[in-house]
Every structure is written in C-alpha cells, then in structure tokens.
C-alpha cells in the first residue's frame, strides 16, 4: 500500500525525494524490526506535505531519517533519499552536518526541551548561523534579532538573551522555528511543532509555517492530529505501522477517506461530532441516539460577575437534579512572594446525567477548580455543596464518609496509581474503602469493574507500569466508578492518549454517563473534545469563568475572544 507519488501536482522540482524508505532497528536477536517499511513521497519547494499518524506509526522516524538522525542503531535504506540533490544516505561526517541546519531545518515538538534550557535562545540561533553562514559575531547577533522578528517574537532584542524557560510556550516555539530557519534551509521538517501548545497559540504557529511555505521553503509537517494539518498542508500522507496507507489533498483525505484506517482516524476526531455519536468503531450505538444537546440547555452556568446570566435564566432545566454546586469559589496561591489567582468567584452546578465542559488555556485555573471540588484544596472564599449539603467547609474526617459520591479521573492515569500495587489491588482498595477485604466478593467486584470499562479481568494481576495508555485510563475510570459515585470529575482524561484511543475512552465515558446517570465535570484544553462531550460549557481564563452556558449558545454568541476560537474549533 505504498502511496503513489503524485508527480503531476508538483509545483517545482522536489527539494525532497523519498523512495522506498526502510528503517529498521535491530532487536535482541539481531533481527531487524522495521518501523518504516517502504515509504515514498516527495516535497517540492513552496509545498507543505503533512504526514499524519498515531504514535508508533513511524512518521517521526521517517522525518528524522531525512536528516540522518533516525536514531542509534537504526538501519536506514532507500532506493532514493535526496534532499536538494544530495544523497543523504551516502553523506557522512562533515557533509552530513553541513546538510543539517543548512539544507534541512528541524523544528521539534516542545521548545522547552528542544532548546537547551540552560542557554539563551539567541545563542542557539547564533550557533546555527555560525555553522552555516560566514557571518562574524556582530552580524550574527543582528541576524538573530532579525530572525526572531521574522518569526513574530516581540521585543526580539530582549528575547534573544532569555532562556526557553523565561518565554511562553508560543514564544519559544517561534524561537525554535527561528533557529530552524536560521541556516536558510530549503526544506523544513516540523515534527509535531504545535502539540504542546494551546489551541489559539497553535493557530499562530501554523500560520507562521504557512508563511514560510509561501516564501518558497518546502515544509514536511509531522502530526498526530488530522485537524492541525487541514489548514496548512497541500498534501497529506496517512501512516500506520510504518506504511503510508493513504495520500491526497486534505479535503480528499478528510472527506472521502478510502482506507479503513484513515476512516477510523477521521471518525475519531471529536471536533464537530455531535454529542452522543460514538467516535470509535465497534462501540455500541447509544440507545437513545444523539441527544439534542444544543437544543435543550439543561444546566445553569453562572458567569462570574453576575452580568450576562439573564440570557440563560429563562431556560429552566428540564431534567437532572443538581448534585454538586460551586458558588463563588476563590483560591489564591503565594508563590515566591507573588500572588497567583488560581480561581476567582467560580460558580456552577453539576446535574445528574449532564456534562459540564470546563475549557481554557493551561494555567487558567481549571485544575485548581477540580481540586477545590474534590476537597483536596480549601477555597479561600465560596463554598461547594454536595447533594444539597455543605462539602467544602467540612473537616476531612466528616467528608470522608461521603467521598464515595465523588469520583475523579486524572490526566496521567499512570502516576495516579501506586507503582507497587497491582491493578487488582488498586481496584479492590477502591471497592472496599475501608471495609475488610474479604477475598471472594471483592475479587468478583473487581472483575465486574474491569468488565464495565471494557478490560479483561485477567489484567487484575498486572502492575500499572505494564499497561498501555488506554488501559490505564480505563482502570482509572474503573477506580472512579468503584464506589458508585454520582459525580465524576474528569481532569484532562484523554489528553495523553492517541486519537483512536481517545475516541474509545470518550465513548466509554459517554456510555457510563447514560447507564448511571452521572454528572460529569470534564476539564480539557481540547475544544474538540469539550464540544463533543459537553451539554454545557464554561470557559476559564486567569482563574475566572469568562463565558458560560449551554454548548450551543456559547458557540453562537461568543462574547469573549476565547469563545470565538471555540466556535472555530466546532466548525472545523
């Protein structure tokens, strides 16, 4: 299933030609394990080609092979692997190093770690200049500032002297791009350049890449996220298991996927999928079908400050009792003499059978809000009531008997398990909650729980480390369900997962909500997920809820800039 090279669409002579690329890593028996198996494509100057695939698909190795950086011990072979006329495979030592940075620039994922955290960004850019241009020190400094300005970094002069840790995520990603283009490469390899970024920032970085492409640089974009590449790529290649299974323009691939894997991938994208529609193949279709989420707003979400609530007050909830209510929650942290407002006057309520999506950029106070609800943190002001009774003001000992009403699923499921415990022990612990552990019944309950979340009960003997990402998140859900809670706090439950796995977990959560009439607070930075899962949405920024209401109304009357982005995400 190698993709065909679409020569007729080539704009100019290709800067990159890859034909029958095979990359193998020797395993213990000396047998090669092929992670890239016969991949062919080309990138022309001024063209952006995207490779999309999930982790382990071989897309990154493909990209890095172009720079001769496939990894230690990698055996790379190809019928042809040329960059700007140079045969990469025959290059070595000095000429290979001249290729890197000079002919091919690499932009890696997270600039916080992809730029040396100990050195000012200007020095990193200057190093590239020193290697690939004949500029003297002063000229290099000037050029560095120029480059930083070009990638849209304000106060470039000042920034050049700062370290990655002193910049915001978007800023340092731009700096990384500046370092990547400093040698004026003909080809830019962007390996997941936006993955660690919040969505609004993501868009900016992608626009910048688009500009570079328009200036005539060939861009090879690697991403796990189909939606990211849609706006910028000229052509898309879909990879899985080291093979390209589909190739075409973004609209071809997205709208008329030919290969089943592509279809699965496209289906798994939650953005724009109505509430209740299963994302993963094989998930049982929900009994009631898609719910008219946008049509019947069911939860009252109060905006901080009181204004703007009137619009929603008219629509009374038609079903679902209020299980948890937060009113006026505030929390401020003292960090090194500075005050950080993590939550300010946050109010909302969670109802049975409904999901409130809490979205916002990282650092906007979403997780603090979750911790306040869970009673892991005490609010400075405001109160949480659970089933109409006070919750947050109580001492922990009095809360403890009612903790079974409240379950939590954390972002990093793995670190929420004691590494020394088996899955069975973790779940048994959650099931018993202090009861003595009589073996028979507990074991049966554990099996039942695992079954509920779609896992083989045999997994009970495993330790968390030996679970896959999806499995651990399912175990995490199972633990949350163990005591039959009424409310689940889901803190970024799927953000560490691949798209298809994410789809399965989201479907599972949806199913459980239906079956058990659970109230969800879904915290996520991924607007697509939020829109797919939520009945109501609240947008947080700098510790405040800046926009809230039924999902539909938040999209339709975006009062806040951030909400506008929401709308864009939905309409993708």
């Amino acid at each position, binding site marked *: 299933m190698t993709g065909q090279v679409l020569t007729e669409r080539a704009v100019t002579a290709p800067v990159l030609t890859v034909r029958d690329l095979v990359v193998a890593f020797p395993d213990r028996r000396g047998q090669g394990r092929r992670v890239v198996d016969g991949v062919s494509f080309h990138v022309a100057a001024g063209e952006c080609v995207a490779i999309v695939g999930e982790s382990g698909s071989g897309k990154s190795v493909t990209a890095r092979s172009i720079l001769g950086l496939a990894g230690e011990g990698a055996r790379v072979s190809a019928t042809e692997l040329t960059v700007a006329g140079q045969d990469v495979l025959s290059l070595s030592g000095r000429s290979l190093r001249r290729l890197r940075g000079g002919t091919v620039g690499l932009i890696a994922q997270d600039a916080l*770690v992809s730029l040396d955290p100990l050195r000012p960004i200007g020095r990193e850019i200057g190093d590239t200049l020193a290697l690939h241009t004949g500029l003297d020190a002063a000229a290099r400094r000037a050029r560095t500032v120029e480059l930083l300005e070009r990638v849209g970094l304000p106060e470039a002069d000042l920034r050049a002297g700062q370290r990655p840790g002193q910049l915001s995520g978007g800023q340092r990603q731009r700096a990384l791009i500046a370092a990547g283009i400093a040698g004026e490469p003909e080809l830019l390899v962007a390996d997941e350049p936006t993955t660690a970024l919040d969505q609004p920032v993501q868009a900016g970085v992608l626009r910048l890449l688009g500009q570079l492409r328009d200036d005539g640089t060939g861009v090879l974009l690697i991403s796990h996220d189909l939606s990211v590449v849609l706006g910028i790529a000229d052509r898309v290649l879909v990879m899985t298991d080291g093979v390209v299974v589909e190739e075409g323009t973004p609209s071809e691939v997205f709208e008329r996927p030919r290969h089943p894997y592509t279809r699965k991938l496209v289906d798994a994208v939650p953005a724009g999928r109505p509430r209740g529609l299963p994302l993963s193949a094989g998930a049982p279709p929900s009994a009631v079908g898609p719910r008219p989420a946008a049509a019947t707003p069911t939860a009252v979400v109060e905006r901080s400050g009181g204004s703007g609530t009137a619009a929603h007050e008219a629509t009374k909830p038609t079903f679902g009792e209020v299980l948890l209510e937060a009113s006026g929650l505030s929390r401020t942290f003292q960090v090194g003499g500075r005050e950080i407002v993590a939550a300010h006057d946050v109010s909302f309520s969670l109802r049975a059978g409904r999901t409130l999506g809490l979205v916002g950029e990282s650092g906007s106070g979403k997780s603090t809000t979750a911790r306040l609800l869970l009673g892991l943190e005490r609010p400075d002001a405001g109160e949480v009531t659970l089933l109409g009774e006070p919750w947050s003001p109580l001492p922990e000992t009095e809360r403890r008997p009612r903790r079974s009403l409240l379950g939590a699923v954390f972002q990093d499921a793995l670190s929420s398990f004691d590494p020394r415990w088996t899955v069975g022990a973790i779940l048994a612990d959650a099931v018993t909650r202090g009861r003595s552990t009589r073996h028979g019944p507990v074991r049966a309950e554990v099996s039942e729980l695992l079954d509920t979340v779609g896992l083989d009960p045999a997994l009970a003997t495993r330790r968390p480390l030996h679970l896959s990402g999806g499995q651990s998140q399912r175990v995490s859900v199972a633990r949350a369900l163990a005591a039959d809670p009424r409310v689940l706090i889901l803190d970024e439950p799927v953000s560490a997962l691949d798209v298809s796995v994410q789809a399965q977990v989201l479907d599972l959560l949806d199913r459980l909500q239906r079956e058990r009439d659970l109230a969800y607070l879904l915290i996520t930075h991924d607007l697509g997920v939020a829109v797919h899962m939520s009945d109501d949405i609240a947008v947080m920024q700098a510790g405040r809820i800046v926009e809230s209401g039924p999902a539909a109304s938040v999209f339709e009357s975006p009062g806040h800039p951030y909400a506008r982005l929401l709308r864009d995400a939905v309409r993708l």
Partner: protein
Amino acid sequence: MAGALTLPVPTTGARRSPAPGNRRWLLLRAGGVVFVLWAAATITFFALRLIPGDPAEAILGGPGSQAGPEALEQVRREYGLDQPLLVQYLTYLGRLATGDLGQSYSLHKPVATAIGEQFGATLALALCSLVLAWALACALAAWSVRGGRVAWAIGSGLELVAAAVPHFWLATVLILLFSLTLGILPPVSVPGPLGIVLPALTMAIPLAGFLGQVMRESLLTAMESPFVTTARARGESEVRIFWRHTLRHAAIPAVGLSGWAFGSLISGAVVVESVFARQGLGRSLLSAVQLRDVTLVTGIVLVVALAYTVMTLVTDLADRAIDPRGRAVTE
C-alpha cells in the same frame, strides 16, 4: 572517603526557593551560615560535656594527661567549669565569637594559632583535588561518550572501582607506581607543585569516580534530550554537543555535590596527609584524636564546619550560574 558516603544526591534543586532576588537569597544564605555555625558550636560544646569524667581533665588530654591539681584548677578557672552550665555555654560562645578556640594542651599553643598554621595546606590540597577530580571525571566522560559502547563500559567500570577504593590503599598503590617504580613523583610531600600531585591524585581519584557516576547518569539523560537532537539537526558535531550542551547539563547535579565533595575531601585529608606526611588540618585532627586533645579536635571541627558551609554557599552560587532556571521558573 566518600562521605556521604552518602550518596551523591543532588539537593540544590529541591531546596532552592523559587524566586527571591539575588540579594535576598544571599542574605538568607548568609543567615543560614551563621545559624549552622552557632548550632555546630552548640553541638561541640555539649559533645565536650558528654565525655565521661572530669571535663577539666578531658581538656588536658584525659586520664593519661598526668595533669596536676594546679593545672586542673587553672583549666577549671579558665573555662569557668565551676559555673552553671548555661554560664559556661555563654562564655564558650563569647570566646568563639572573638576567635578564641582555647588552648591546645598537646601543642602548647592556642588552637586558633595551630589551625591557622595548618589550614592553608589542607585548603590547597582540597581545592587541587577538587579541580583534579573534576578534570578526571570530565575527561573520562568525554572519552567514553566518544568511544562507543566499549569505552562507555570501561569508563563506568573505572568510575565504579575508583569510587570503591579506600584512600589509604590507593595512596600505597600510587606511591608504588609513581615513586618507586617510575620514580617520577616524590612519595612524600615536598615543597613546590610536584609534592602535591600524589596526595591530590589520591583524593581526586575516588572523588572523580563519584562525580563521574553522577555525571554519567545525567549525561545519559542529557544525551537523550530533544535539545541534543535539535543541536544535531542544525549540524553540530558530537564533540561540540558534548562540551557545549550535554556536559553542562550533566555537571549540574555533580556541581551540586561539590559542597559535599569538599567535605569528603576534608575527611580524606585525615588519611592522605598522614600517609604523605603533608602539613594540614587532617593530620592535626588525627593526632589530636589520638592524643585526645579535645580543644584542638573541637576547634578543627568547628573551623571545618565553617569552611564547609562557606563552600556550600559557593557551590550554590556556582550552581545558580550554571543553571539560571532556578531563578526564572516557578513550578
């Protein structure tokens, strides 16, 4: 003698307060130094009182001192031993504050003078060893990074053995090798730079083993960091990547250990100075312990605690210079 023996665990990161300004940080740390000294003085004071028997006799060297009643009486008067404990304690602190560490019975001179005579030699030895240890550790790391799997294995093996070698044994081996077999270095300390080579080497080798082990671990992490890929992708050679990027990262935890290392060097000096017949506090301390010259022992211990604390402060400063993240980023 690796003292901490305890294990090289970098601690600076954990203790660093997030973002106070440089001045405030320095002030805080200086306050810490004073506190540590006071507490150290207090501990030594009470340690002295724990010695069984007559404290006056202990000050004069214990039951074997053959001190006459007049001598004992004089010591009692001088140290205020007939006063209540609190008064004694305050007197003791007062004397320390003026730099008076008491009189050494075994040397017939004030402890402060005796320490002053010896301190420089030990400091020079410790610093030489520290520098040498760093050089050895870095050189070995550089070599084993470049030399592939075999060099890596040999390098870590060497470090392992180096860290497990007792000073007194190593000293013997080095004397046999460099002095008696090769005849290029003097077996005992002599005036001039040549004399410090073997003692410094003896202390540096085990320390280099420790630093190397710590560095090696962080070197691995650093070498797998994405920024190394970035550097490779812009065409940097492996050599430059090592010296410019990875070494610096690898050095951070090891620099954090330098304060500890200094302490372990002082410990090592006790043995090494004796073997190589060098001047120094370590040798004074050993003979003071053997002669049970309590005032001299406590004096030396206090002075070393001071030096150590100051050294830790310097290390923290160095650490902040290498790794400015501590100031910029809050967690």
